[in-house]
């Protein structure tokens, strides 16, 4: 390459080695770094240049994609740069980076999908992928793509410095600070690991109906794992933060709780008692417990499962499913949250979608195909793991709106039950509606008071049943900053979840008999 352009730099650089390269090229004028042309642009021009394509090339590829009669096609351009740094034994001695670059081409004929992708963005390779995807259709008609019209993205995660402009030198002190804080919090700590993962994703979506849109999606994930030992007994736990923010978000105020919570949730386990399993009252702590919604109702409300009649919610729209004070949303617009999107992966605007409003089941979460099937507006839930996958309806940030009760009222109303606080994973069977979520730590509630810690039990319930058993909802809604990665159909996407303090009158909790 003869000269170093921003495009070639971005395309090839993985390592956040911007410490060496960036000051020369981009930060000569400090203002330039603050206003990257790729952030919330007013036209697609910069992204065309970034992906080395033109409108003319795109229209030719789309014409190939539609030449067997598909009635719609789209192209999903993606460039993702991800860096991971790991600290263990007081040393930052491991780093990993990944560059992903390519385009996915989807052809739709009614609700049938042809899909192909290529990692080479030249006209020949894209043309081959287009002709492969075109095979889903088998007709003589051919619809030319419309003229392209730019759709400006929202701006729910404004950022000053792109993550690939932050060098490893600037990240290492953050890991060190967290590590020192973990070791200083409790002398029983015997091992600590700190992970720092930053991701920059550039996306451009072009549709045959003439819409084009672009977005830069930042993500920072910090993850602290620790092991502690006390009188020969060991316990481990972890805590994480994952948000669409820049390095300016990583203040002591935002970082310290990650170390503090990781340590607190580890050492409390030394006092944990065995729980007697069975059906019991469960109070879900505000925040992470939103995993209940994700599993109990979220997946079952993704429109594809309903269009295919696989979901237990397939015939429940408009019906009363919970108490009047229960409202549940899936929100793609929550500022800086892990599941937030300025545009979804089909170039539709995201929104705050009510799944349940005042106890009534209101709306599924749609991608373009299901929205067309149900003759409704897309809700901005069309998402994909990467350009290697077609989009499907997925959650974003799923949470319950605040209710009329208080946390104190809720806890004091329980004679004997579980206060569920932190979780590792969950799963749902879409058809029967059985769902589970795994409690890594929580407490017993005895006679209206939080008492001894408990750990490592699975909670299992039935989605529609549990919704009817939400008997109290507090006013203290909290969105989990830890977030999670949701898996469906072999695709993982970042999501978040939240909940006010909630009381469920009965769930089957694991434990000894």
């Amino acid at each position, binding site marked *: 390459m003869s000269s170093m352009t921003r495009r070639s730099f971005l395309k090839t650089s993985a390592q956040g*080695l911007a410490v060496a390269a960036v000051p020369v090229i981009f930060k000569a004028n400090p203002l330039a770094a603050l206003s990257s042309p790729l952030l919330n642009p007013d036209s697609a021009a910069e992204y065309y240049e970034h992906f080395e394509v033109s409108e003319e090339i795109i229209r030719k590829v789309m014409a190939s994609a539609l030449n067997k009669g598909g009635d719609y096609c789209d192209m999903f351009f993606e460039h993702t740069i991800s860096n991971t740094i790991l600290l263990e034994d007081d040393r930052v001695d491991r780093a990993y980076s990944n560059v992903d670059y390519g385009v996915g081409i989807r052809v739709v004929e009614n609700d049938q999908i042809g*899909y192909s992708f290529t990692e080479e963005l030249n006209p020949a390779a894209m043309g081959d992928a287009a002709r492969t995807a075109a095979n889903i259709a088998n007709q003589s008609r051919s619809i030319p793509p419309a003229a392209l019209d730019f759709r400006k993205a929202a701006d729910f995660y404004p950022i000053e410095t792109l993550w690939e402009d932050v060098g490893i030198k600037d990240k290492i002190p953050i890991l060190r600070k967290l590590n020192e804080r973990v070791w200083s919090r409790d002398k029983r700590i015997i091992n600590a690991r700190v992970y720092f993962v930053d991701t920059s994703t550039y996306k451009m979506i072009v549709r045959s109906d003439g819409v084009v849109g672009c977005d830069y999606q930042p993500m920072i994930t910090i993850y602290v794992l620790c092991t502690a030992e006390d009188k020969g007994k060991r316990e481990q736990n972890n805590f994480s933060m994952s948000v669409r923010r820049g390095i300016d978000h990583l203040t002591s105020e935002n970082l310290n709780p990650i170390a503090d919570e990781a340590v607190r949730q580890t050492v409390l386990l030394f006092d944990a008692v065995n729980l007697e*399993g069975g059906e019991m009252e469960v109070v879900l702590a505000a925040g992470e417990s939103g995993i209940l919604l994700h599993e109990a109702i979220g997946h079952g409300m993704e429109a594809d499962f309903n269009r295919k009649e696989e979901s237990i919610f397939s015939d429940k729209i408009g019906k009363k499913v919970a108490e009047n004070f229960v409202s549940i949303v899936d929100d793609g617009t929550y500022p800086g949250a892990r599941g937030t999107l300025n545009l979804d992966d089909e170039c539709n605007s995201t929104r705050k979608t009510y799944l349940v409003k005042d106890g009534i089941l209101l709306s599924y979460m749609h991608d373009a195909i299901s929205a067309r099937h149900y003759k409704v507006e897309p809700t901005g839930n069309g998402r994909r793991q990467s350009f290697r996958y077609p989009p499907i309806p997925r959650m974003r940030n799923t949470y319950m709106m605040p209710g009329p009760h208080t946390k104190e009222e809720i806890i004091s109303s329980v004679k004997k039950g579980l206060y569920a606080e932190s979780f590792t994973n969950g799963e749902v069977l879409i058809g029967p509606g*059985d769902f589970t979520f795994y409690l890594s730590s929580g407490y017993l509630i005895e006679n209206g008071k939080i008492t001894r810690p408990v750990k490592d039990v699975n909670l299992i319930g039935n989605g529609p049943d549990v919704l009817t058993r939400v008997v109290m909802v507090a006013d203290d809604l909290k969105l989990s900053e830890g977030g999670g990665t949701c898996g469906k159909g072999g695709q993982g996407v970042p999501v978040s979840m939240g909940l006010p303090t909630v009381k469920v009158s009965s769930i089957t909790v*694991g434990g000894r008999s």
Partner: protein
Amino acid sequence: MSKYDKIELARWVVKKGKQAGADDISVDVIKDRSISVDFRDGKMEELKESSQNYLSLSVYADHRYTSHTTCDLNKDSLEKFISEAVAMTGYLNEDPYRSLPDPKYYKIRNDIDLGIHDDHYYDVTSEQRVKIARDLEAATSALSDKIVTCNASYSDSRAEFVKINSNGFEGERQSTYFGVGVETTVKDVHGGRPGDYDYIGSRFFKDISSLERLGRTAFKRAMQKIGQKKIESGVYDMIVENRALTTMLAGIRYPLTGSYLYRKNSCFENKLGEKIASGKLTIIDDPYLKAGFSSQLYDNDGMATKKRALFEKGVLKSYLIDWYYSRKLNMEPTTGSESNITFALGSRSPEEMIRDVKQGIFVTQFVGGNSNSLTGDFSYGIVGLYVKDGEIVHPVNEMNISGNIMEIWKNLAEVGNDPYQYSSIMRPSMYFKDVHFSGI
């Protein structure tokens, strides 16, 4: 890109890495082509076909280490990628344990033919692929009007791998894979829509045959779930069907690894040679199984694979230690990437074992749950069938089992004769005594 092009590319990457200042380089180049066809309710639902490339690079420089991947194999891009990877490595702390493996571990058994590549892969036509999925979907949908929806899918893939370690290792392999599955959903009058699936896979296209039985099994299994209910909490016998058992096996796999042992996060620390499970449990890591889904002559480090027992008659015989952790833990390396996991088998089928159950649950599926690698505590949701006096009474759901790894594996009373054929983990069904179930 041919096999020789990939080897050439990998050698070029090693050369460029060393020129940029690395002491040693490890490179993997992978090319993969995959195709899938899905039919639902009489229509092709999805057709996917793509090829992808992938290059992974590990840099060893001045006792420092980093690792990088990219899908952009353009040489201009790669040259810059490599030089930045090496430069970045300089910013990290030294790690005296980082190095490529000792070349004495590179003695690969090249005399063994793993039989993991179907030379007829390119003879398979689009029409054949489509017909398999279409016919299976049609045959399954026709089984009963109780089926609400049915999805049949065909997929195949072909992958080529090249690996070079700059201190004297070069390896390559090609493999193919073919799989067919069908899933049905039926309606329960109580409102639920239980579903189930059946599936086969093989390294060879010729094995993808007599598929109608897949639909019959999927339908039967879905129907078997109608009328599920939970029973009272209690201590019961449990037979876990082979298909479901991977969940419990994961609980004893992670604590075997070097990473978990090193960060003091394993319930198996200092337990080598101790009896962990009942004498019925023998688990062998077998890299040479003909046509196995994880058969391999060398592992992720490039070290020659060996057949070895992980558990023998309940005794913990081997950890899973890759090269790096062997140095950190001062242990002999085994492998960080297991091959096919096989088991000593019993003589009876799960149906025969069920006849011995006075009161218990035949678990056909685990739902969620997890296992604590350090304390061994676990808890999983289950779906299954309630068994009383040797007879299946009714389907069960919405229950949990809980316990500790160090207890439940000692309660393994019998191992079935039915290794699961379509996975690299070839587990038979297993019968456990005295398991804590929570329900009503």
